[in-house]
């Protein structure tokens, strides 16, 4: 019984701890509904703070991040769509604020580069292995002279 109570206690504790671990500074902003709150927080998480650069809008305490965070919340509550909000941010702070760059001509290298490199590597590996195999098969047949030479060498060692 005691063990059971202990287990339940531990479970409850861990659940509350999970709760605090994902808690975010929602400032004092009151969202209209939970869906809005979730969407706004997700958006703010995906936008980079222009001043601190290594943090998203939620993580950062800088005044700019606070402002932008609030702006995102208000826009979500005003019923604006994700694309509209992202457009608002990039038209002021540039593509920089997006953690995930958009797919466009200047970012093709960024998106496709790794895939191209991987394919290139696989191709080289494939060619290399195939060559190895072919040359391996050929080498099994020694010419008469080579065989004689080999025999001679082996015999010398045996003596």
């Amino acid at each position, binding site marked *: 019984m005691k063990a059971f109570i202990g287990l339940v206690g531990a479970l409850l504790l861990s659940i509350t701890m999970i709760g605090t671990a994902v808690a975010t500074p929602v400032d004092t902003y009151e969202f209209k509904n939970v869906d809005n709150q979730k969407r706004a927080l997700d958006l703010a998480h995906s936008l980079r703070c222009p001043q601190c*650069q290594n943090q998203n809008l939620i993580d950062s305490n800088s005044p700019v991040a606070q402002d932008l965070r609030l702006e995102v919340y208000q826009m979500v509550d005003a019923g604006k769509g994700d694309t509209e909000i992202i457009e608002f941010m990039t038209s002021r702070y540039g593509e920089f604020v997006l953690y995930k760059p958009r797919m466009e001509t200047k970012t093709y290298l960024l998106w496709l580069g790794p895939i191209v490199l991987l394919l290139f590597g696989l191709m080289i590996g494939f060619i290399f292995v195939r060559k190895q195999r072919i040359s391996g098969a050929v080498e099994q047949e020694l010419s008469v002279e080579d065989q004689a030479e080999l025999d001679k060498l082996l015999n010398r060692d045996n003596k």
Partner: protein
Amino acid sequence: MKNRLVLFIPLILFLAMGIFLYKGLFLNPQQLDSALEGKPIPAFKLEKLEDSSEIITNETLKGQVSLLNVWATWCPSCKYEHPYLMRLARQDILPIYGINYRDERALAVRELAREGDPYTKNIFDHEGRLGLDLGVYGAPESFLVDHNGIIRFRYAGPIDMRVWKETLYPMIQELQAQAKAEGAS
């Protein structure tokens, strides 16, 4: 022999990437490109810092090449920049408009009275709304605006002699020549 050359492709790729990344080491991450270059100044309607009854709008800034300087009393780099702005103001090359960004009015007015006022006019952006629309992420920041009210250049950080001589002044001369050619004052 041809096959041997193929073996050098990875080395060449590696060197190319090396050069690319090495160059990246010397970029300044604090200098973000402004998304607003080539776009008009965002519309605004704000009080003048020293006189709340006077309203300054984006239309006020049109007609001549001007420098917009975002500053605040809480910003140490602005204090560093201030003497150089005073020097520029004395040379009377172009109007310098101040955007007093998220600041206290009384503090800002007192600071200018004590240290000198290089600004033609000061826009009081208490809420930081104009700053937000301009994509300001710190202070000081300066925007070069042409006679049509189009933002042509943004410089983040304090203006000093080097920045002025190497970057800003040549651009200003060019913009002023353009303005003259198009018949603006």
